[in-house]
C-alpha cells in the first residue's frame, strides 16, 4: 500500500497545478526610482489617449519583501546583483533530490524544468512602501485568524513523517501519532491553500482546483506572468497569462460610474478606471470571500496606477489596503518590458482546469487510501502527507 499510495500521490502532485505554492515571490523590477513615474506623453493611441497597449512582463526577479540584510536600501549594488545572479545560477532548486522513495522526493516531481529564473533585479524588494520594503504588520484580528488557520493545518499534518522528521512544513506543530479529531472539522475559513486532507473538492488549494490566478498579480515561478492590454476609445481590456493556464481577463469600466452593488462579489473584483494625466488609475473592490490575497478577502481594496514610461516600458504601481488585515496600506511597484507582438508569446486558454487530472487523482487517492486502511492493507490515511511540496524552494536567496 505504501508504494501504491506514493504512486498515486506522484501522479497527483506531478499533474496538479502547484502554481499557487510559488506565487508572488518570484518577479521583480529592473530598477527605477521610487518616486512617481514619468510618463512618455508622446506615445498615444490614434484617438489621443495614452497608449498602454502590448504584451507586458517583468523581466527581472526581485524579492517580494526586502531581505533584512538590505535594511532601508531600495536598490542593491551592481556587485551584490552580480553575486546573486551567480549564486542563483548554481542552484539546483527543484532538481534537488531528497531521500529516494519519500513523500517529499515524489513531491519534487514538478522539477525545475517548470520554473523560470530571470536575472536578479537591482531592486531589493517589490514593495516600495513602507520604506523598509516589508508587508505592514497584521492587525490583531488578522493575526488571530492566521494563527487559527495555521493551527488547523498543523492538526491535519501532525501524524505524518513531515512532522515526525521535524520538517519546516511542520514549524509550530509537533508530531503526534494519534490522528487529530480536527480531521472531521470544516476549515476555520473557506479554504484556499493546500491542506493535508482531501475529503472534498473544497479541501483543495486554489491552485490545485485551477481557481487561482488573481489580482493583485505579481507572477509565479512558473514562467512569470504576462498581460496583454488592448485599448479602444474609452475602453481598456486586459488578459493575464499566469500560472500554467490559469489566465483571466479584466475589462476596465471607464464610464465614471460607481462600483458594483456590495452584494456582487467577484474573483477578480470590480475594476473601475479613469485617466489622471497620462496615468490609468484603476480602483478595484467587490472581491469575493472565496479568494485570498495574503489573508485579505472581501475587504481588499486596490488602487493601481499604469503609466507608459517609454516605448518599451510600462510602470505598474499598486497600493494594497485592507484595514481588517494590515495596520496600514502598502505599495508594490513593477516595471514591465514590452514583449514582441509578432512573437505573440501569451497563452489565452485557461486550460489548467480542462486538463486537470491531478486534482481528481488527489481525491481518488484519498478514497483508495481509506479503503485500503479499512481492509487492513494500508496505514491510517492521516499518516500520509499529500500537502507538502517545497523541495528546493527554501534555498532561494531572493526569498
Amino acid at each position: 500500500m505504501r508504494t501504491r499510495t506514493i504512486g498515486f500521490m506522484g501522479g497527483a502532485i506531478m499533474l496538479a497545478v502547484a502554481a499557487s505554492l510559488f506565487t508572488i515571490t518570484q518577479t521583480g523590477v529592473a530598477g527605477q526610482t521610487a518616486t512617481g513615474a514619468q510618463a512618455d506623453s508622446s506615445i498615444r493611441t490614434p484617438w489621443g489617449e495614452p497608449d498602454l497597449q502590448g504584451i507586458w512582463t517583468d523581466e527581472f526577479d526581485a524579492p517580494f519583501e526586502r531581505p533584512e540584510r538590505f535594511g532601508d536600501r531600495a536598490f542593491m549594488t551592481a556587485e551584490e546583483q552580480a553575486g546573486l545572479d551567480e549564486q542563483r545560477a548554481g542552484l539546483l532548486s527543484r532538481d534537488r533530490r531528497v531521500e529516494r522513495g519519500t513523500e517529499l522526493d515524489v513531491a519534487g516531481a514538478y522539477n525545475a524544468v517548470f520554473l523560470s529564473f530571470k536575472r536578479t533585479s537591482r531592486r531589493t524588494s517589490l514593495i516600495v512602501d513602507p520604506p523598509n520594503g516589508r508587508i505592514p504588520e497584521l492587525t490583531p484580528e488578522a493575526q488571530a485568524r492566521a494563527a487559527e488557520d495555521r493551527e488547523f493545518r498543523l492538526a491535519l499534518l501532525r501524524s505524518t513523517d513531515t512532522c515526525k522528521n521535524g520538517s519546516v512544513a511542520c514549524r509550530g506543530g509537533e508530531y503526534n501519532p494519534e490522528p487529530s479529531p480536527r480531521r472531521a472539522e470544516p476549515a476555520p475559513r473557506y479554504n484556499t491553500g493546500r491542506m493535508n486532507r482531501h475529503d472534498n473538492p473544497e479541501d483543495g488549494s486554489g491552485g490545485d482546483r485551477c481557481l487561482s490566478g488573481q489580482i493583485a498579480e505579481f507572477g509565479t515561478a512558473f514562467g512569470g506572468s504576462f498581460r496583454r492590454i488592448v485599448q479602444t476609445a474609452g475602453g481598456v481590456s486586459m488578459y493575464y497569462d499566469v500560472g500554467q493556464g490559469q489566465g483571466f481577463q479584466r475589462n476596465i469600466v471607464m464610464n465614471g460610474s460607481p462600483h458594483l452593488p456590495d452584494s456582487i462579489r467577484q474573483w477578480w473584483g470590480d475594476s473601475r478606471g479613469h485617466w489622471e494625466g497620462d496615468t490609468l488609475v484603476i480602483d478595484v473592490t467587490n472581491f469575493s470571500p472565496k479568494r485570498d490575497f495574503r489573508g485579505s478577502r472581501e475587504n481588499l481594496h486596490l488602487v493601481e496606477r499604469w503609466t507608459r514610461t517609454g516605448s518599451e516600458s510600462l510602470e505598474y504601481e499598486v497600493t494594497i489596503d485592507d484595514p481588517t488585515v494590515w495596520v496600514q496600506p502598502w505599495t508594490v511597484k513593477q516595471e514591465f518590458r514590452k514583449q514582441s507582438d509578432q512573437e505573440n508569446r501569451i497563452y489565452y486558454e485557461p486550460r489548467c482546469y480542462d486538463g486537470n487530472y491531478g486534482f481528481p487523482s488527489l481525491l481518488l487517492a484519498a478514497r483508495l487510501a481509506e479503503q485500503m486502511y479499512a481492509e487492513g492493507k494500508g496505514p491510517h490515511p492521516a499518516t500520509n502527507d499529500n500537502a507538502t511540496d517545497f523541495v528546493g524552494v527554501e534555498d532561494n536567496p531572493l526569498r
Partner: protein
Amino acid sequence: MRHLNSNSLIGVVVVAAVVGGILSASVSRMAGQATRPDRIDGRPNLSGIWQVNNEANWDLEAHAARPAMITQPGVYPYAYTRLPAPPVVALGAVGAVPGSLGVVQGDGQIPYTPEALARKQENVENWVDRDPEIRCYVPGIPRAMYMPYPYEITQSTNQIHMAFAFSSTARTIHMDDGVAKPPDYTYMGHSVGRWEGDTLVVDVTNFNVTGWFDRAGNHHSEALHLEERFTLVTPNVINYEVTLEDPNTFTRPWRIAMPLYRRVESNMQLLEFRCQEFAEEFMYGHLRKEPLVSHWESATMEIDITRKIPEGDAFYDWYSR
C-alpha cells in the same frame, strides 16, 4: 433565418450605409457609457458589449421545441413522444429546448460525412458526458459568439480583443498578418483579421478536436477553418456570418448567420461567470468522502443521477486497469 438571407441583407446594409453616413460625424454616447466614436482609425467601431438573442447554442439546425437535451423513450414508440431522461427530468420545463428556424444557411442542414453524422448522433445520446459546456470548458469559436452570455469587444487598430463572460475566456484578432501562431492546437483558434470595406473578415485556424458547436452534439475536427464576417448594420446590430470548412467532418463548406445585439443597458458591464467552480460537483462530486448527491428526493419522486464515465477518458482508463 429567412429574414437574414443575402438579398434582404444587402437591403439592410444599403439602408444602414445611408443611415451610417448621416451619423458618421456623430459620436454615440449611451447614458452611463464612455464616449464611443463611430469609427476607430477609419473603420466601423465594433467596441462594446454584445450578445445573441437566439437558440443557436441549443442547436444550430432548424428544430421544433423538444422536452430536453437528453431524452428517453416514452410510452409510445415515436420519436416525438420521447420524455426527458433522468439527468435533467427534475428541471421540468426549464430543461426544455426552445424551437428555432436555425442559423444554418441554405437547406438548414449541416453537410456531415456519414461517419461524422454518426458521431453527432452518438454525441446526442451522450450529451451529459460529452458537451464541453457542461464542464465549463473553453467554448471555442464560433460557439462563444452565440452562447447566452455577453462578451466585450475592444477594438484597437492592430488588434481587436474579445472577452467572453463564459469561463473567462478571450480571443485576440490580429490585424497584422504574420503574428506567430500558438505552438499548439487551441479551443479558441488563432484569428487573423482584415477589413473588406466596412466588413471585418477574420480567418480562424489552429483548432483542437474537442470543440462542439452547440448542445446538440454538432462537432468538428482540428481541420476546422472559419471565415467570420462582422458587419455593423445599425449602431446596435452586427450581422455575423461564418463559413465553416472541415474536410474531415463536412462534405462541403457551409455557412451560419445571425445578428449580434449590443447590450444597450446604461449600466451594462461584463460580470464574471467563472463556471469551473459551478461544474466541480459534476466533475468531482463522486470522489467526495461522503457524496452530497447519491440520489435526489422530493415528495413525489426519487431520481438516481447517473454520471457515466466518458469513453476513452485517459484518466479513468488509467485507474480502472
